[in-house]
């Protein structure tokens, strides 16, 4: 089951369209750096964090948890048979995290000072953000190192690859620890917001755990989703048996998540808020239904072999994870009455451009590098 480049043309109508979207985003980012954040985004003092933080960073890195989730499975749980899925997952993670980290720079008002967050003289250790920033930065480096073997393979650098392999177990261990830390901390970010986060989403003790579990769930789902997408997009067979087992893990992960989620709400006395919070109740239930959907779709083991069910469940899970984060960071963020926020067109276009870049790079990489497992 060795991986190999799938080959084919790089310049296609699809990649050209993606390139155009990237160009638009670059133009808008130029505007942002010359005129300030307000020139491109709708963020304001009521919603100082908008789409770029919620989507590009918080959701983007969660979507890029495929590598993390698979590493957890393969290296910690010692499930070698999942191995064919590791490389494509890792590639998606490399792009997801790198671009997530980059997006942070776009969003920083005083980006030229960004290095302060790595300088002990400036670091304020009580800040959750320090931990998030350090871990994400470190993890981006770790991801690239993890991806190096693929490059070395393509370039025929067998010596280098052999040397790297000897030390790789430490890198892999870090590659598991770091996402564990910061994916949970993305939840901890919200603790200091206090009453500003609606009771349906605020929780002191469990926010880190809920964010972590949902991130792992999204990691598994993104692997399934990508596999489905690749199988159709690149006309390749689907590794159904592997995905079938992954689906089983996902179901139990989600059951655990939902139990914890509702226990937490019950303990905090927020049960009433589930029904009495107007529009927020709607978003809460939409999110919950999306979380529950994979469990329903994949609960029967025989259903897990069906590609359609796998795809729909993975999609639901990704939507659930994303909505959970949007709910916690934006919709359930009660900054005080009178404030409005909806991303500006230009703001959305930048995000679209980043996603386009991610897809573009993925296409280029899988065509040129040994990422995807060799087809049977």
């Amino acid at each position: 089951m060795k991986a190999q480049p799938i080959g084919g043309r790089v310049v296609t109508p699809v990649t050209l369209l993606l390139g155009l979207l990237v160009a638009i985003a670059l133009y808008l980012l130029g505007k942002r750096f010359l005129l300030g954040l307000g020139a491109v985004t709708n963020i304001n003092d009521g919603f100082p964090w908008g789409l770029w933080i919620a989507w590009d960073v918080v959701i983007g890195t969660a979507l890029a948890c495929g590598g993390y989730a698979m590493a957890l499975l393969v290296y910690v749980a010692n499930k070698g048979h999942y191995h064919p899925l590791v490389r494509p997952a890792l590639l998606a993670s490399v792009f997801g995290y790198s671009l997530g980290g980059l997006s942070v720079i776009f969003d920083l008002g005083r980006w030229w000072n960004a290095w302060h967050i790595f300088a002990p003289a400036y670091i304020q250790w009580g800040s959750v953000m320090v931990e998030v920033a350090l871990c994400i930065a470190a993890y981006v480096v770790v991801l690239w190192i993890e991806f190096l073997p693929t490059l070395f393979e393509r370039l025929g650098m067998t010596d280098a690859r052999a040397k790297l392999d000897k030390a790789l177990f430490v890198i892999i261990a870090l590659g598991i620890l770091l996402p564990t830390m910061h994916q949970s901390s993305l939840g901890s970010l919200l603790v200091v917001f206090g009453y500003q986060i609606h009771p349906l989403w605020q929780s002191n003790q469990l926010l880190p755990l809920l964010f972590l579990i949902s991130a792992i769930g999204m990691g598994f789902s993104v692997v399934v989703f990508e596999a489905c997408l690749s199988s159709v997009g690149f006309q390749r067979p689907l590794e159904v048996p592997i995905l079938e087992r992954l689906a089983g893990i996902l179901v139990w992960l989600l059951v655990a998540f939902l139990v914890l989620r509702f226990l937490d709400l019950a303990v905090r006395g927020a049960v009433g808020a589930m029904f009495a919070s107007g529009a927020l109740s709607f978003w809460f239930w939409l999110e919950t239904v999306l979380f529950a959907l994979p469990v329903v779709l994949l609960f029967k083991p025989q259903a897990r072999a069906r590609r359609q069910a796998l795809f729909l469940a993975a999609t639901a899970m990704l939507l659930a994870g994303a909505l959970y984060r949007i709910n916690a960071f934006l919709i359930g963020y009660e900054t005080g009455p009178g404030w409005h926020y909806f991303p500006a067109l230009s703001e959305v276009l930048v995000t679209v451009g980043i996603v386009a870049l991610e897809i573009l790079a993925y296409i280029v990489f899988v065509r040129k590098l040994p990422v995807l497992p060799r087809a049977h």
Partner: protein
Amino acid sequence: MHQDPISTLEAKLGVSRRSFLQFCTALAATMGLPKGADAQIAQALAGAAKRPSVIWLHFQECTGCTESLLRAEHPTLEKLILEIISLDYHESLFAAAGHQAEAARKAAMEANKGKYVLVVEGAIPTKDGGIYCKIGGHTAMELTKECAADAAAIIAIGSCASWGGMPSTPPNPTGAAGVNAIVKDKPVVTIPGCPPNPYNFLATVAHFLTFGKLPAIDEKGRPLFAYSRLIHENCERRAHFDAGRFANEFGDEGHRKGYCLYKLGCKGPETYANCPSILFGDVGSGSWPVGTGHPCVGCTEQGIGFAKPIHALADLKNTYPPASYPRIVEDQGQGLSFGSAALVAGIAGAAAGAGAMLARNLGRKDDESDKA
């Protein structure tokens, strides 16, 4: 040959037609009357067939009101009272003395029964049977009642006559009260102020002569044309108030620079009067208390003037400065816009469509596998 009444008046008063018309325009403006009213006033003042009789009573006063009228330049009061109205009784100005004056008053009241205008200057002491002010053996209360009985209109000039004014300052040793405390069965127009602005009085009289009735008044009897706005609203130093520039003490830097006098106890924010717009003494800009660096003492406002200590700060009655206050909750930030909503909807739609296609595609493969 019929002569134009204004020309007649011109000859009688020895004032030019131009200055007389200017005066009428000033009165019309004081009352905030529409264009054309000045001509109406001019005709009424000049053409009055018979000059209305005026009885002017002085009680607990300082003559300041009369004095301030004497300062009005365009037709001086003598002119006004002698040519426009017939002043039949006024202690300070009237030529007759003693019992002659007393007789003149009675004669005028009899002759103009139900038609004369009663003007009261000074407060009316009510304590101890009104003994604190006696004229010709009659108390002020008796005289007021007697003269008010057959008056066509009653004007209380000055704060003293309006509500007791200065003599009613706590503890009000003489029980000083205004005309409307004595005369309850007739409307009393009050022209408070210490002294009041002469034009507010003259305009009230002109209104009566022109339209045959007294001007619209507030619940305290004050003509609305003069007393419906707070001093604060028209104050020339308002910009300093809004900008937070205050004089802290008499003679300090802010005081010399003409800053707002609120901190020195200016009662402009709780006092209704037109002082800043019509000014005093025909001198031009700045000729009113605040203009000369002294806080308003609220002399037109019962309960403020002479009652509230000068250094005590005014309570603002007005919550709407020129630029409105921010509310506790203001709409801020950019909500849903058509462009971004359309884009987001488009992306979601495309994603949903693609997802559905994909799902169907995968479903077909499932079916193929099932068959296989």
